[in-house]
């Protein structure tokens, strides 16, 4: 059912605790993650280029509320218009279907080489591995995706997939795969990637992209990129397949213009991304470029289920990455421990909503509930609230004899009874006082360093 969960241990949310512990003690990773804090500062500047960013957030949140409430009408209308313009529309209920549909298109068109621009949904479906087994070569063309594809790793950020890698690591990788000299100059590395990926664009017979938005009124798909690989992928190969999920549909171009303002500022701190392509249908007669066939795959895979649940708001997400850029937990552990396609606060919620409690039930705990994510979310998803809801759900489904359940039940009992609560507080104060050192700190309890005490002290109670 969940193709990309099978193999690697690293790529599995049920190992969340093990994996974050490994990452916390990795100094190289810490350095890379620290760098990502500069997005926090640049975003602050970027949002000033509109007169009222809060109002813009309200608008985009409302657009998403409305479109998610009316998906049925929007999608039917979208499909009608897309078909009018020669788009071939496919629907898929599960990951196997997505992969099979793509393979069928590839087979029909005798495709040997596929180029991909960023697509998180095919990451979900494990498409690259699937096509590899069918002897079809897939090349990721987004620089970050290219780096991690060649180092056999999953992405660790939805906007900057190779954010965990230092330039030295990239340089080592490139010298190996490009057979070129080692350089730590980032411009030279980018240039190397340009030169080495370029032939793939011209050789490919099929291009696969995602879609940031679908526009119901015109039957269009929209992709937003900076590198230009998205445009290459939807212009050069003879077949173009866009893989998207049903909740991406909005009504019209007025809404699109507004959503773009909020997306690019939140994602990469730009007033606008370099390339916005709005694609409607296949190449027209006599046109000199463009694909002869244009397919769009509309994926459900769990979306309708989330829509009915009390975490439906996560479907408003426009994948900007602002929540992870502002998350203290993400900054400490990086993206990989989340164990599946989406990291950070939105990932904790989406992974766990899509994969279920058994596999991804630990992820909603990856938050201090500080609400930094909720404050920056461009579509006003109440991320901490949703995480609490998911924790609640997990707690309720827990076996009654589980240690966590016993402790929490006990805790909820004493915190509801002030006299018992006070009794325990007074005992705790006495123990902490007794165990305090000369500097007025309590570093351990009876010599034991557990939980809180592993990394921190408690002050001596007065």
């Amino acid at each position, binding site marked *: 059912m969940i193709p990309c969960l099978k193999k690697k241990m690293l790529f599995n949310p049920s190992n969340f605790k093990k994996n974050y512990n490994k990452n916390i003690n990795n100094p190289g990773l810490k350095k890379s993650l620290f760098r990502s804090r*500069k997005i926090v500062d640049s975003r602050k500047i970027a949002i000033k280029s*509109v*007169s*009222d960013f809060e*109002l813009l957030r309200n608008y985009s949140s*409302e*657009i998403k*509320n*409305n479109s*998610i*409430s009316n998906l*049925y009408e929007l*999608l*039917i209308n979208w499909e009608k218009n897309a078909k*009018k313009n020669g788009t071939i529309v496919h629907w898929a209920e599960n990951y196997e*279907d997505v992969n099979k549909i793509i393979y069928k298109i590839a087979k029909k068109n005798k495709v040997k080489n596929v180029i991909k621009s960023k697509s998180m949904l095919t990451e979900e479906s494990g498409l690259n591995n699937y096509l590899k087994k069918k002897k079809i070569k897939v090349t990721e063309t*987004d*620089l*970050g995706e290219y*780096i991690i594809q060649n180092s056999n790793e999953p992405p660790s950020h939805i906007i*900057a997939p190779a954010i965990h890698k230092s*330039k030295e690591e990239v340089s080592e990788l490139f010298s190996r795969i490009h057979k070129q000299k080692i350089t730590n100059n*980032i411009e030279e590395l*980018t240039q190397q990637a*340009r030169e080495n990926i370029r032939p793939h*664009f011209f050789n490919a017979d099929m291009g696969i992209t995602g879609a940031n938005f679908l526009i119901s009124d*015109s039957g*269009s798909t929209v992709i937003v990129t*900076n*590198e*230009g*690989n998205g*445009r*290459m992928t939807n*212009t050069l190969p003879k077949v173009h397949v866009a893989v998207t999920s*049903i909740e991406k549909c909005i009504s019209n*171009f*007025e809404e699109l*213009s*507004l959503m773009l303002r909020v997306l690019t500022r939140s994602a990469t701190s730009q*007033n*606008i*991304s*370099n*390339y*916005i*392509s*709005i694609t*409607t*249908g*296949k190449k*027209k007669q006599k*046109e*000199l*470029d*463009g694909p002869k066939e244009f397919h769009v795959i509309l994926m*459900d895979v769990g979306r*309708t289920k989330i829509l*009915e649940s009390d975490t*439906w708001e996560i479907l408003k997400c426009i994948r900007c990455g602002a929540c992870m850029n502002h998350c203290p937990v993400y900054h400490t552990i990086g993206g990989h421990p989340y164990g599946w396609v989406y990291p950070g606060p939105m990932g904790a919620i989406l992974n766990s909503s899509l994969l279920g409690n058994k596999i991804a039930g630990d992820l909603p705990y990856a938050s201090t509930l500080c609400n930094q994510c909720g404050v920056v979310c461009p579509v006003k998803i109440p991320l901490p609230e949703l995480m609490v809801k998911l924790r609640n759900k997990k707690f309720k489904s827990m076996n009654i004899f589980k240690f966590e359940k016993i402790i929490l039940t006990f805790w909820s009992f004493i915190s509801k009874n002030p006299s018992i609560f006070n009794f325990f507080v007074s005992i705790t104060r006495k123990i902490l006082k007794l165990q305090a050192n000369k500097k007025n700190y309590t570093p351990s309890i009876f010599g034991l360093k557990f939980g809180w005490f592993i990394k921190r002290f408690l002050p001596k109670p007065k």
Partner: protein
Amino acid sequence: MSARSNILKKLKNIKLSHGKKDFKIDVKKIVPNFKNSETFFRAKSIENNCIVETAKNIDEINEKILNFIQANNYSSDLFVWPSIKTLNFSPKFKINSKKYNNEKVGVTSCFCGIAETGSLMFVSSEATPMSQSLLPESHIAIVRRGDIVRTMEDGFNKYFVEKSIDRLDRQICFISGPSRTADIELTMVIGVHGPKRLLTLIVDDL
């Protein structure tokens, strides 16, 4: 049952009303209140790492293009949009408007300029393909002064004067500066897969 009918059936059965019904967008409250669109367009284009120049007539356009290719040590091969190949380009240039042949410079006009973000709007057609603004190392885009509008909404409105919304051209593309990335250590680098340089020529008329 097909996947399509299953999904649509589920969606039809889920009754949601999360949005406000009387919701209206007032873009004027969002977009900064600038007076002169051209000045703002120019400033934003430069912020997007474009080179911005002006030209009065075709002679000046020729001169600016020549200066540009000399400054970058390019040959005189130009990959030009079919729609503008009939302009009086200087005989010094070798003009190709068919299949891309590794020219270093692509020359296009554009549908309009968007002042708010310094973007150029392109619409694909037989005479205005997408390759010229994508494949060459440098892209020269000619924009008529009168075609600079305030916002993306205005750009769409201008487009929909002639087009019916359910019959769009294959691609509408907004380009805002040369291609760039920050995928290695979040360090911004100009010139990845798309053009490394974008020269915007604002002209009185074409």
